[in-house]
């Protein structure tokens, strides 16, 4: 599928002297916007009341968006790599913004299906394309620090929720003054619709700004003082390239898929239940020693560690290596889950500290995985390979809540649960992390038979991306 010339990859090849530090804000401009997907709880109750519906029915909007994220990242990854980041960011912005406009229209006219189609389906496509669009570009601009580069972008996805939550509250308060953001007050549907239209306008400006300042490096560009041959000295890191179609035929791809699935499922287990979980762990009869406001503070703290973990752990992986850092995420994660299950209810600080570190590993796992893919498969179609790997996220998004909610349903009634009721679910997470740990240990360098032919230059490779697919 051809793109208009102003979006074409060839038009955005940076000239000599271009400063690569303009690329991270371009990536952040997109990720800070699409990260709004994690702030949907702000208007969830308002939508339930407006549509006279249920939490489950409204929750489906988010589920559709996350499934579409995985599907579109997997389907359009090759297109993104072939046409470059400007075309991808532009397309993502169009889908994401249209999703808000159609969704807002659905709220305004009282048609829930329009919200499913708009925010869920169209917005979800924008999410998937937007999530992967700047990643491979950053890896190419920062071959000396790929973990730092991907950490910066994917940190933005975590940061997007931090911005959208308070901003949405303030905007809904502006459109409906009876809503002040405190417990018990709910904004009306018109205010939520107006919020959707406002966010659409703001996100359009930000994402287009990112799309128009982004550049790709020339094929022979390298940072000052960077010697590509030094990269090969590190274990698992290749200077060869593997196509997306071939990557999914390798055991390394599926082992990494398992690693990501296990790490994300374990993290979602806590994230999904964060507020009620801390109250249940310190429940004394009918009441908890942890107030609702304190539980909300705990959720905020987890968001901070989720975002910080993306940047800090991913950057650390540049120094200690991708495989060792995942051994930390999964191995130390297992120990922390055991501590949480056995000692978590003895003191609030133990509970908070272990949960916060676990969530930082969850974020770190997301941010480090593109750099891990680059180490194993090279930069040629790393965006497309990343897109296909994100199906593990979609699967974990279903499995994580299913495990936790399924176990808790057998343990008692919400509002009466105690720490012991969470133990079976937490020990399942320990088992999952053990599976991920073994999968990570089994990852070896990719066999030479999957490498792209050396004679073909990168420009030709882009023109004929499927040339090795038949292998």
């Amino acid at each position: 599928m051809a793109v208009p010339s102003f979006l074409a990859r060839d038009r955005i090849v940076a000239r000599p002297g271009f400063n690569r530090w303009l690329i991270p804000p371009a990536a952040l401009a997109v990720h800070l916007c699409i990260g709004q997907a994690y702030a949907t709880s702000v208007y969830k109750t308002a939508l339930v009341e407006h549509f006279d519906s249920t939490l489950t029915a409204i929750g489906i909007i988010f589920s559709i968006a996350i499934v579409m994220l995985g599907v579109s990242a997997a389907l359009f990854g090759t297109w993104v790599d072939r046409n470059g980041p400007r075309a991808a960011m532009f397309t993502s912005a169009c889908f994401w913004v249209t999703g808000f406009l159609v969704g807002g229209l659905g709220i305004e006219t009282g048609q829930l299906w329009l919200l499913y189609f708009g925010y869920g389906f169209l917005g979800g496509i924008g999410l998937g394309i937007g999530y992967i669009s700047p990643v491979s570009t950053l890896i190419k601009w920062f071959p000396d620090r790929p973990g730092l580069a991907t950490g910066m972008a994917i940190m933005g996805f975590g940061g997007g929720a931090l911005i959208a939550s308070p901003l949405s509250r303030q905007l809904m308060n502006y459109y409906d003054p009876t809503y002040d953001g405190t417990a018990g007050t709910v904004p009306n549907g018109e205010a939520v619709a107006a919020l959707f239209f406002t966010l659409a306008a703001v996100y359009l400006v930000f994402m287009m700004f990112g799309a128009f300042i982004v550049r790709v490096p020339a094929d022979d560009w390298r940072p000052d003082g960077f010697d590509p041959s030094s990269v090969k000295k590190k274990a698992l890191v290749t200077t060869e390239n593997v196509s997306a179609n071939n990557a999914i035929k390798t055991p390394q791809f599926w082992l990494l898929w398992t690693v990501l699935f296990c790490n994300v499922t374990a993290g979602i287990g806590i994230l999904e239940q964060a507020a009620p979980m801390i109250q249940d762990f310190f429940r004394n009869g009918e009441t908890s020693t942890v107030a609702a406001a304190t539980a909300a503070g705990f959720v905020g703290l987890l968001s901070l560690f989720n975002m910080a973990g993306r940047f800090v752990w991913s950057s650390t992986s540049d120094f200690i290596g991708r495989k060792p850092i995942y051994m930390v995420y999964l191995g130390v994660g297992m120990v922390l889950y055991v501590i949480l299950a056995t000692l978590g209810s003895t003191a609030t600080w133990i509970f908070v500290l272990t949960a916060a570190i676990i969530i930082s590993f969850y974020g770190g796992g997301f941010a480090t995985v593109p750099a891990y893919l680059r180490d194993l498969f090279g930069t040629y179609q790393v965006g497309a390979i990343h897109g296909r790997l994100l199906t593990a996220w979609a699967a974990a998004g279903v499995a994580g809540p299913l495990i936790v909610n399924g176990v808790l349903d057998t343990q008692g009634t919400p509002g009466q649960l105690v720490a012991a009721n969470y133990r079976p679910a937490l020990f399942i997470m320990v088992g999952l992390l053990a599976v991920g740990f073994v999968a990570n240990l089994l990852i070896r360098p990719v066999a030479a038979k999957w490498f792209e032919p050396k004679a073909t230059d990168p420009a030709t490779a882009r023109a004929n991306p499927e040339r090795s697919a038949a292998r």
Partner: protein
Amino acid sequence: MSHPATDNRQPTHTPVGLIAFAWTLVGVPLAYGLYNTVKAATALFGG
């Protein structure tokens, strides 16, 4: 910053002001989000 081996196109210079503007554009909303989240998280330690 870049070090092309064979690129014979006209060199460019990225204005420092543009880089500062781009970082400010993404940094200010991020700082706003961080401030509000830290404010919410303080309830955990003050409660």
